[in-house]
Protein backbone atom coordinates (compact mmCIF):
# COMPACT_ATOMS: atom_id res chain seq x y z
CA UNK A 1 0.00 0.00 0.00
CA UNK A 2 2.69 2.35 1.14
CA UNK A 3 4.99 1.67 -1.77
CA UNK A 4 2.14 1.94 -4.21
CA UNK A 5 1.13 5.33 -2.79
CA UNK A 6 4.66 6.63 -3.03
CA UNK A 7 5.17 5.37 -6.53
CA UNK A 8 2.18 7.22 -7.92
CA UNK A 9 3.68 10.71 -8.11
CA UNK A 10 6.81 9.23 -9.65
CA UNK A 11 4.70 7.56 -12.29
CA UNK A 12 2.78 10.76 -12.82
CA UNK A 13 6.01 12.64 -13.26
CA UNK A 14 6.93 10.18 -15.94
CA UNK A 15 3.53 10.20 -17.63
CA UNK A 16 2.88 13.94 -17.45
CA UNK A 17 5.39 15.10 -20.06
CA UNK A 18 4.19 12.44 -22.47
CA UNK A 19 0.57 13.40 -21.86
CA UNK A 20 1.33 17.07 -22.37
CA UNK A 21 3.16 16.29 -25.59
CA UNK A 22 0.24 14.20 -26.78
CA UNK A 23 -2.18 17.04 -25.97
CA UNK A 24 0.01 19.55 -27.75
CA UNK A 25 0.18 17.28 -30.78
CA UNK A 26 -3.56 16.83 -30.74
CA UNK A 27 -4.16 20.59 -30.49
CA UNK A 28 -1.70 21.19 -33.28
CA UNK A 29 -3.41 18.54 -35.36
CA UNK A 30 -6.84 20.03 -34.73
CA UNK A 31 -5.72 23.54 -35.61
CA UNK A 32 -4.10 22.21 -38.76
CA UNK A 33 -7.15 20.20 -39.70
CA UNK A 34 -9.48 23.15 -39.33
CA UNK A 35 -7.01 25.13 -41.37
CA UNK A 36 -7.26 22.53 -44.11
CA UNK A 37 -10.99 22.81 -44.38
CA UNK A 38 -12.57 25.13 -46.87
CA UNK A 39 -11.01 28.09 -48.56
CA UNK A 40 -8.12 28.97 -46.33
CA UNK A 41 -5.21 28.54 -48.68
CA UNK A 42 -3.51 25.68 -46.90
CA UNK A 43 -3.41 21.94 -47.23
CA UNK A 44 -2.40 21.91 -50.89
CA UNK A 45 -0.21 19.14 -52.19
CA UNK A 46 1.37 21.42 -54.77
CA UNK A 47 4.14 23.87 -54.00
CA UNK A 48 2.94 27.06 -52.36
CA UNK A 49 4.59 29.95 -54.20
CA UNK A 50 6.57 32.24 -51.87
CA UNK A 51 4.84 35.11 -53.68
CA UNK A 52 1.70 34.56 -55.78
CA UNK A 53 2.41 35.01 -59.49
CA UNK A 54 0.10 37.29 -61.48
CA UNK A 55 -1.15 36.25 -64.91
CA UNK A 56 0.69 37.76 -67.83
CA UNK A 57 -1.53 39.44 -70.39
CA UNK A 58 -0.29 37.71 -73.54
CA UNK A 59 -1.91 36.77 -76.81
CA UNK A 60 -0.79 33.66 -78.73
CA UNK A 61 -2.37 31.63 -81.52
CA UNK A 62 -4.54 28.60 -80.72
CA UNK A 63 -4.66 25.36 -82.70
CA UNK A 64 -7.49 26.74 -84.85
CA UNK A 65 -5.24 29.63 -85.88
CA UNK A 66 -7.23 32.14 -83.83
CA UNK A 67 -5.74 34.63 -81.39
CA UNK A 68 -6.12 33.63 -77.74
CA UNK A 69 -5.95 36.44 -75.19
CA UNK A 70 -4.76 34.48 -72.18
CA UNK A 71 -5.81 36.79 -69.36
CA UNK A 72 -9.26 37.62 -70.75
CA UNK A 73 -10.11 34.09 -71.94
CA UNK A 74 -9.14 32.40 -68.70
CA UNK A 75 -10.66 35.00 -66.37
CA UNK A 76 -12.95 33.39 -63.80
CA UNK A 77 -11.50 29.91 -64.30
CA UNK A 78 -8.95 27.85 -62.48
CA UNK A 79 -6.26 27.79 -65.16
CA UNK A 80 -3.43 25.31 -65.38
CA UNK A 81 -0.62 26.73 -67.52
CA UNK A 82 2.22 24.56 -68.78
CA UNK A 83 5.07 25.12 -71.23
CA UNK A 84 6.39 22.08 -73.08
CA UNK A 85 6.64 20.36 -76.44
CA UNK A 86 5.14 17.34 -78.11
CA UNK A 87 8.47 15.58 -78.75
CA UNK A 88 9.07 15.61 -74.98
CA UNK A 89 9.57 11.97 -73.87
CA UNK A 90 7.93 11.87 -70.48
CA UNK A 91 7.66 15.06 -68.44
CA UNK A 92 5.11 16.83 -70.69
CA UNK A 93 2.88 13.91 -71.70
CA UNK A 94 2.76 12.49 -68.15
CA UNK A 95 1.72 15.87 -66.70
CA UNK A 96 -0.97 16.27 -69.37
CA UNK A 97 -2.16 12.66 -69.11
CA UNK A 98 -2.43 12.82 -65.32
CA UNK A 99 -4.45 16.05 -65.44
CA UNK A 100 -6.66 14.66 -68.22
CA UNK A 101 -7.32 11.43 -66.34
CA UNK A 102 -8.34 13.29 -63.18
CA UNK A 103 -10.58 15.80 -64.97
CA UNK A 104 -12.48 12.88 -66.49
CA UNK A 105 -13.60 11.82 -63.04
CA UNK A 106 -14.83 15.23 -61.89
CA UNK A 107 -18.50 16.19 -62.03
CA UNK A 108 -19.24 18.67 -64.82
CA UNK A 109 -19.73 21.58 -62.39
CA UNK A 110 -16.12 21.25 -61.23
CA UNK A 111 -14.74 20.26 -64.61
CA UNK A 112 -16.33 23.26 -66.33
CA UNK A 113 -14.49 25.67 -64.02
CA UNK A 114 -11.03 24.46 -65.02
CA UNK A 115 -9.07 25.36 -68.16
CA UNK A 116 -5.80 23.75 -69.19
CA UNK A 117 -3.47 25.76 -71.42
CA UNK A 118 -0.40 24.22 -73.02
CA UNK A 119 2.09 26.56 -74.72
CA UNK A 120 4.61 24.94 -77.05
CA UNK A 121 8.26 25.81 -76.57
CA UNK A 122 9.02 24.15 -79.91
CA UNK A 123 6.88 26.07 -82.44
CA UNK A 124 9.03 24.96 -85.41
CA UNK A 125 8.11 21.31 -85.01
CA UNK A 126 4.81 21.65 -83.17
CA UNK A 127 2.45 22.60 -85.99
CA UNK A 128 -1.12 23.48 -84.97
CA UNK A 129 -2.25 20.08 -86.29
CA UNK A 130 0.40 18.18 -84.41
CA UNK A 131 -0.29 20.11 -81.21
CA UNK A 132 -4.03 19.39 -81.55
CA UNK A 133 -3.48 15.69 -82.21
CA UNK A 134 -1.17 15.42 -79.19
CA UNK A 135 -3.48 17.31 -76.80
CA UNK A 136 -6.58 15.42 -77.98
CA UNK A 137 -4.93 12.28 -76.74
CA UNK A 138 -5.18 13.61 -73.20
CA UNK A 139 -8.27 15.81 -73.36
CA UNK A 140 -9.93 17.44 -76.36
CA UNK A 141 -10.69 20.54 -74.28
CA UNK A 142 -7.02 21.31 -73.60
CA UNK A 143 -6.01 24.59 -75.21
CA UNK A 144 -2.81 24.54 -77.30
CA UNK A 145 -1.01 27.80 -78.01
CA UNK A 146 1.84 28.77 -80.33
CA UNK A 147 3.93 31.86 -80.83
CA UNK A 148 7.45 32.55 -81.93
CA UNK A 149 10.13 31.30 -79.64
CA UNK A 150 11.28 34.70 -78.34
CA UNK A 151 7.72 35.68 -77.58
CA UNK A 152 7.12 32.48 -75.61
CA UNK A 153 10.41 32.88 -73.76
CA UNK A 154 9.47 36.42 -72.77
CA UNK A 155 6.17 35.14 -71.38
CA UNK A 156 7.93 32.45 -69.40
CA UNK A 157 10.39 34.91 -67.92
CA UNK A 158 7.56 37.32 -67.04
CA UNK A 159 5.89 34.42 -65.22
CA UNK A 160 9.03 33.73 -63.24
CA UNK A 161 9.80 30.55 -65.19
CA UNK A 162 13.14 29.82 -66.84
CA UNK A 163 13.25 30.38 -70.59
CA UNK A 164 13.43 27.29 -72.79
CA UNK A 165 16.83 26.12 -74.00
CA UNK A 166 17.41 24.66 -77.44
CA UNK A 167 20.34 22.33 -77.97
CA UNK A 168 21.39 20.72 -81.21
CA UNK A 169 22.25 17.02 -81.08
CA UNK A 170 24.59 15.09 -83.37
CA UNK A 171 21.85 13.78 -85.60
CA UNK A 172 20.75 17.30 -86.53
CA UNK A 173 17.82 16.98 -84.15
CA UNK A 174 17.51 19.17 -81.14
CA UNK A 175 16.37 18.95 -77.57
CA UNK A 176 14.21 21.50 -75.83
CA UNK A 177 14.93 22.09 -72.16
CA UNK A 178 11.93 23.59 -70.42
CA UNK A 179 10.35 24.19 -67.05
CA UNK A 180 8.69 21.11 -65.61
CA UNK A 181 6.28 23.11 -63.48
CA UNK A 182 2.55 23.63 -64.01
CA UNK A 183 1.28 27.00 -62.76
CA UNK A 184 -2.20 26.88 -61.24
CA UNK A 185 -4.01 30.22 -61.47
CA UNK A 186 -7.10 30.60 -59.33
CA UNK A 187 -10.07 32.86 -60.01
CA UNK A 188 -8.18 35.84 -58.54
CA UNK A 189 -5.87 35.56 -61.60
CA UNK A 190 -2.93 34.70 -59.36
CA UNK A 191 -0.96 31.47 -59.17
CA UNK A 192 -0.50 30.67 -55.49
CA UNK A 193 0.38 27.04 -56.13
CA UNK A 194 2.65 25.32 -58.67
CA UNK A 195 2.96 21.64 -59.51
CA UNK A 196 6.34 20.05 -60.17
CA UNK A 197 6.95 17.00 -62.29
CA UNK A 198 6.10 14.00 -60.15
CA UNK A 199 2.68 15.35 -59.16
CA UNK A 200 0.43 12.32 -59.04
CA UNK A 201 -3.17 11.92 -60.11
CA UNK A 202 -4.18 11.64 -56.45
CA UNK A 203 -2.57 15.05 -55.82
CA UNK A 204 -4.46 16.68 -58.69
CA UNK A 205 -7.70 15.02 -57.59
CA UNK A 206 -7.14 16.43 -54.11
CA UNK A 207 -6.11 19.95 -55.09
CA UNK A 208 -8.17 20.89 -58.15
CA UNK A 209 -11.62 21.00 -56.47
CA UNK A 210 -10.03 23.01 -53.63
CA UNK A 211 -8.61 25.47 -56.15
CA UNK A 212 -12.05 25.80 -57.74
CA UNK A 213 -13.57 26.76 -54.36
CA UNK A 214 -10.58 28.79 -53.20
CA UNK A 215 -11.11 32.44 -52.18
CA UNK A 216 -7.75 33.01 -50.48
CA UNK A 217 -9.28 34.72 -47.49
Amino acid at each position, binding site marked *: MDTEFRSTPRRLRRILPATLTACACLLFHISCSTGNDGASGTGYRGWMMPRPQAKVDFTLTDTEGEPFEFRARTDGYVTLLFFGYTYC*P*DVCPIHMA*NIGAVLDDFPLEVRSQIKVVFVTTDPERDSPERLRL*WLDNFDASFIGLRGDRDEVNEIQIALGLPASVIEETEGGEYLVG*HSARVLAFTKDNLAHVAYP*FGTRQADWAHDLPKLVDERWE
Partner: protein
Amino acid sequence: MKNPRYTLQHGAVFALAVTIALACISRETPERIDLEVSRVFVTEPVTGERAAMYFSVTNNGDVDDELLAVSTTAARVAEIHRTEHEGGTMKMVPVDALNVPAGGRLDLAPGGYHVMLLELTQNLFPDDRFDVTLRFRHAGDMVARALVIRYEEVEELVGGAAQSDPHNSR
Protein backbone atom coordinates in the same frame (compact mmCIF):
# COMPACT_ATOMS: atom_id res chain seq x y z
CA MET B 1 44.62 -18.31 -21.11
CA LYS B 2 47.67 -18.35 -18.91
CA ASN B 3 49.77 -16.72 -21.59
CA PRO B 4 47.66 -14.04 -23.25
CA ARG B 5 50.51 -12.98 -25.56
CA TYR B 6 50.78 -16.45 -26.98
CA THR B 7 47.02 -16.59 -27.53
CA LEU B 8 47.08 -13.25 -29.33
CA GLN B 9 49.81 -14.38 -31.71
CA HIS B 10 48.06 -17.64 -32.26
CA GLY B 11 44.87 -15.81 -33.11
CA ALA B 12 46.64 -13.52 -35.54
CA VAL B 13 48.18 -16.46 -37.37
CA PHE B 14 44.82 -18.15 -37.53
CA ALA B 15 43.15 -15.01 -38.89
CA LEU B 16 45.82 -14.71 -41.55
CA ALA B 17 45.31 -18.31 -42.54
CA VAL B 18 41.57 -17.79 -42.86
CA THR B 19 42.10 -14.67 -44.97
CA ILE B 20 44.43 -16.52 -47.32
CA ALA B 21 42.05 -19.44 -47.53
CA LEU B 22 39.12 -17.14 -48.33
CA ALA B 23 41.17 -15.31 -50.93
CA CYS B 24 41.99 -18.64 -52.58
CA ILE B 25 38.37 -19.73 -52.57
CA SER B 26 37.14 -16.49 -54.09
CA ARG B 27 39.81 -16.67 -56.76
CA GLU B 28 38.88 -20.18 -57.68
CA THR B 29 35.10 -19.59 -57.69
CA PRO B 30 34.05 -18.16 -61.06
CA GLU B 31 32.41 -14.74 -60.80
CA ARG B 32 28.69 -15.12 -60.98
CA ILE B 33 26.85 -13.08 -63.61
CA ASP B 34 23.15 -12.95 -62.90
CA LEU B 35 20.99 -10.13 -64.28
CA GLU B 36 17.25 -9.94 -64.27
CA VAL B 37 15.30 -7.57 -66.52
CA SER B 38 11.80 -6.71 -65.38
CA ARG B 39 8.90 -4.26 -65.78
CA VAL B 40 9.61 -3.34 -69.38
CA PHE B 41 7.11 -0.65 -70.36
CA VAL B 42 6.84 1.52 -73.43
CA THR B 43 4.64 4.62 -73.46
CA GLU B 44 2.06 4.79 -76.19
CA PRO B 45 3.47 6.97 -78.99
CA VAL B 46 0.88 9.73 -78.97
CA THR B 47 1.98 11.30 -82.23
CA GLY B 48 3.18 8.12 -83.84
CA GLU B 49 6.90 8.38 -84.41
CA ARG B 50 8.63 7.95 -81.05
CA ALA B 51 8.13 6.38 -77.66
CA ALA B 52 9.92 6.20 -74.31
CA MET B 53 10.86 2.89 -72.72
CA TYR B 54 11.44 2.12 -69.03
CA PHE B 55 12.60 -1.03 -67.26
CA SER B 56 14.45 -2.33 -64.22
CA VAL B 57 17.60 -4.43 -64.17
CA THR B 58 18.42 -6.31 -60.98
CA ASN B 59 21.96 -7.52 -60.56
CA ASN B 60 21.86 -10.70 -58.44
CA GLY B 61 25.43 -11.60 -59.36
CA ASP B 62 28.72 -10.43 -57.91
CA VAL B 63 30.02 -8.56 -60.95
CA ASP B 64 29.25 -4.93 -61.74
CA ASP B 65 27.71 -4.77 -65.17
CA GLU B 66 26.83 -2.06 -67.65
CA LEU B 67 23.91 -1.55 -69.98
CA LEU B 68 25.53 -0.63 -73.28
CA ALA B 69 22.72 -0.58 -75.81
CA VAL B 70 19.09 -1.40 -76.47
CA SER B 71 17.62 -2.56 -79.75
CA THR B 72 14.27 -3.69 -81.07
CA THR B 73 12.68 -4.42 -84.40
CA ALA B 74 9.95 -1.94 -83.43
CA ALA B 75 12.28 1.05 -83.86
CA ARG B 76 15.27 1.88 -86.05
CA VAL B 77 16.97 3.87 -83.30
CA ALA B 78 17.02 3.35 -79.54
CA GLU B 79 19.00 5.83 -77.44
CA ILE B 80 19.62 5.82 -73.70
CA HIS B 81 18.78 9.25 -72.27
CA ARG B 82 19.02 10.96 -68.96
CA THR B 83 16.66 13.76 -67.95
CA GLU B 84 18.80 16.53 -66.55
CA HIS B 85 17.41 19.01 -64.04
CA GLU B 86 19.13 22.35 -64.31
CA GLY B 87 18.05 25.72 -62.99
CA GLY B 88 14.37 24.82 -62.99
CA THR B 89 14.41 23.28 -66.47
CA MET B 90 14.57 19.68 -67.61
CA LYS B 91 16.28 18.39 -70.71
CA MET B 92 17.30 15.08 -72.23
CA VAL B 93 20.94 14.16 -72.51
CA PRO B 94 22.12 11.00 -74.33
CA VAL B 95 24.30 8.69 -72.25
CA ASP B 96 26.70 5.95 -73.43
CA ALA B 97 26.14 3.35 -70.74
CA LEU B 98 24.37 2.81 -67.44
CA ASN B 99 25.96 1.06 -64.49
CA VAL B 100 24.24 -1.94 -62.88
CA PRO B 101 26.18 -2.52 -59.65
CA ALA B 102 26.56 -6.02 -58.22
CA GLY B 103 23.75 -6.61 -55.73
CA GLY B 104 22.05 -3.43 -56.92
CA ARG B 105 19.33 -2.37 -59.30
CA LEU B 106 19.05 0.02 -62.20
CA ASP B 107 15.64 1.64 -62.59
CA LEU B 108 14.70 3.61 -65.66
CA ALA B 109 11.85 5.96 -64.73
CA PRO B 110 10.33 9.29 -65.82
CA GLY B 111 12.43 12.24 -64.72
CA GLY B 112 15.51 9.98 -64.55
CA TYR B 113 16.61 7.61 -67.31
CA HIS B 114 14.68 6.35 -70.30
CA VAL B 115 15.35 4.72 -73.64
CA MET B 116 14.02 6.79 -76.49
CA LEU B 117 12.69 4.71 -79.35
CA LEU B 118 12.99 6.76 -82.53
CA GLU B 119 11.81 6.03 -86.06
CA LEU B 120 9.27 3.42 -85.06
CA THR B 121 8.78 0.73 -87.67
CA GLN B 122 5.32 -0.28 -86.56
CA ASN B 123 2.23 1.25 -84.95
CA LEU B 124 2.19 0.70 -81.21
CA PHE B 125 -1.02 0.68 -79.22
CA PRO B 126 -1.69 0.13 -75.52
CA ASP B 127 -1.49 -3.56 -74.57
CA ASP B 128 0.77 -4.37 -77.56
CA ARG B 129 3.84 -6.41 -76.72
CA PHE B 130 7.16 -6.69 -78.53
CA ASP B 131 10.69 -7.95 -77.89
CA VAL B 132 13.61 -5.74 -76.97
CA THR B 133 17.26 -6.75 -76.70
CA LEU B 134 19.37 -5.26 -73.94
CA ARG B 135 23.13 -5.50 -74.42
CA PHE B 136 25.28 -5.69 -71.28
CA ARG B 137 29.07 -5.59 -71.06
CA HIS B 138 29.33 -8.87 -69.17
CA ALA B 139 25.93 -10.56 -69.36
CA GLY B 140 25.78 -10.08 -73.13
CA ASP B 141 22.44 -9.83 -74.91
CA MET B 142 19.23 -10.35 -72.99
CA VAL B 143 15.82 -10.39 -74.62
CA ALA B 144 12.82 -9.05 -72.72
CA ARG B 145 9.19 -8.46 -73.62
CA ALA B 146 7.92 -4.87 -73.55
CA LEU B 147 4.33 -3.86 -72.89
CA VAL B 148 2.86 -0.67 -74.38
CA ILE B 149 1.01 1.42 -71.78
CA ARG B 150 -0.85 4.74 -71.68
CA TYR B 151 0.82 7.82 -70.21
CA GLU B 152 -1.76 7.98 -67.45
CA GLU B 153 -0.69 4.49 -66.34
CA VAL B 154 2.97 5.49 -65.99
CA GLU B 155 2.81 6.78 -62.40
CA GLU B 156 1.28 3.51 -61.24
CA LEU B 157 3.28 1.02 -63.30
CA VAL B 158 6.64 2.75 -63.60
CA GLY B 159 6.63 5.42 -60.92
CA GLY B 160 8.92 8.37 -61.36
CA ALA B 161 12.49 9.17 -60.57
CA ALA B 162 11.66 12.82 -59.97
CA GLN B 163 9.11 12.24 -57.26
CA SER B 164 10.96 9.59 -55.28
CA ASP B 165 14.45 10.97 -55.61
CA PRO B 166 15.03 14.45 -56.98
CA HIS B 167 18.77 13.85 -57.06
CA ASN B 168 18.53 10.63 -59.02
CA SER B 169 19.63 12.12 -62.30
CA ARG B 170 22.74 14.10 -61.72
